[in-house]
């Protein structure tokens, strides 16, 4: 019995590989806070994903709770920050976008559903102060 030619197998797998490379994006940051985003039936898709910057708000992940406690914290990029660091974060994010796109920059607030509004209000006020006015409340689409 002749062996089945397996030379095209690699082509098939490469095809799969390219598909995933094109449709996905690299995971940039590691989550240090637990974020279970709330549901909203009217959630709309973010149009320009590359112009979004993310602010994560939630309780630290269990392995970090001994160090940081269980109060809700803000995570920017890869570390815990306070509201006063948002200004620098926004400035850095602005610089990383091309000049033409800067006005379309969206700040995506990914907050846990059990977070109290106090911390979010602080973040919003700080964003207003840095005039990053386009925001989006991350939420899951649900019917």
């Amino acid at each position, binding site marked *: 019995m002749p062996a089945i030619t397996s030379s095209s197998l690699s082509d098939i797998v*490469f095809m799969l590989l390219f598909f995933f490379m094109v449709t996905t994006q690299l995971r940039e940051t590691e989550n240090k806070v637990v974020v279970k985003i709330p549901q909203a039936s009217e959630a709309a898709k973010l149009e320009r994903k590359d112009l979004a910057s993310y602010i994560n708000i939630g309780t630290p992940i269990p392995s970090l709770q001994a160090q940081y406690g269980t109060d809700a914290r803000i995570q920017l990029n890869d570390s815990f920050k306070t509201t006063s660091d948002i200004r620098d974060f926004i400035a850095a994010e602005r610089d990383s976008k091309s000049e033409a796109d800067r006005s379309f920059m969206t700040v995506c607030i990914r907050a846990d559903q059990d977070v109290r509004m106090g911390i979010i209000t602080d973040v919003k006020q700080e964003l207003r102060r840095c005039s990053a006015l386009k925001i989006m409340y991350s939420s899951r689409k649900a019917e």
Partner: protein
Amino acid sequence: MAKKTPAINSSSTADIAFLLLCYFLMTTTMGTQTGLSRRLPPMPDPNQKVEDQKVNRRNIIIVKINSADRILAGSEPIDVSQLKDKIKIFLTNPTDDPSLPVMEPTEIEGLGTRPVSKGVISLQNDRGTSYQAYIAVQNELVKAVNELRDEASMREYGRKYLALTEEQQKTIKDLVPQQISEAEPKDVGKRRR
């Protein structure tokens, strides 16, 4: 006679490709971001004198959420499920009630003169409000506006809002504006973080 070159054994390329594939599967995300888009009001100029914007009382509805996630719309406590209908009535004023917003006839490009509501929804929350409740209320407000837009586009074009062309959507947006203001933070009730 040329020497016959032996073929390179290619059976392992598939394995290499599989390894690469696994690497990309692990390190990338595919989920699309969804959410509710909002525009924050710009920070008031500190040099400017604080002047209360005189918005006619009938044109504004204040939706408050307290630290126990109870909702007050206008002057009465209300459940989230009823909020949408209340907002829709507020924004359309079907009975020409003098306590509801003015429907001002406005010239809309491409449609002619149509009544446009001057109503503004002002959303206030407490520091102790849970984010979930806040998003639920925001969602109801957006839903009310979206339904009104759907109704308006059915009336004007005979199609749902999402099926319209970009230009028509803009016209409908002018006809049914989304006026949600997130007020300056106020501390109401006792503080709870």
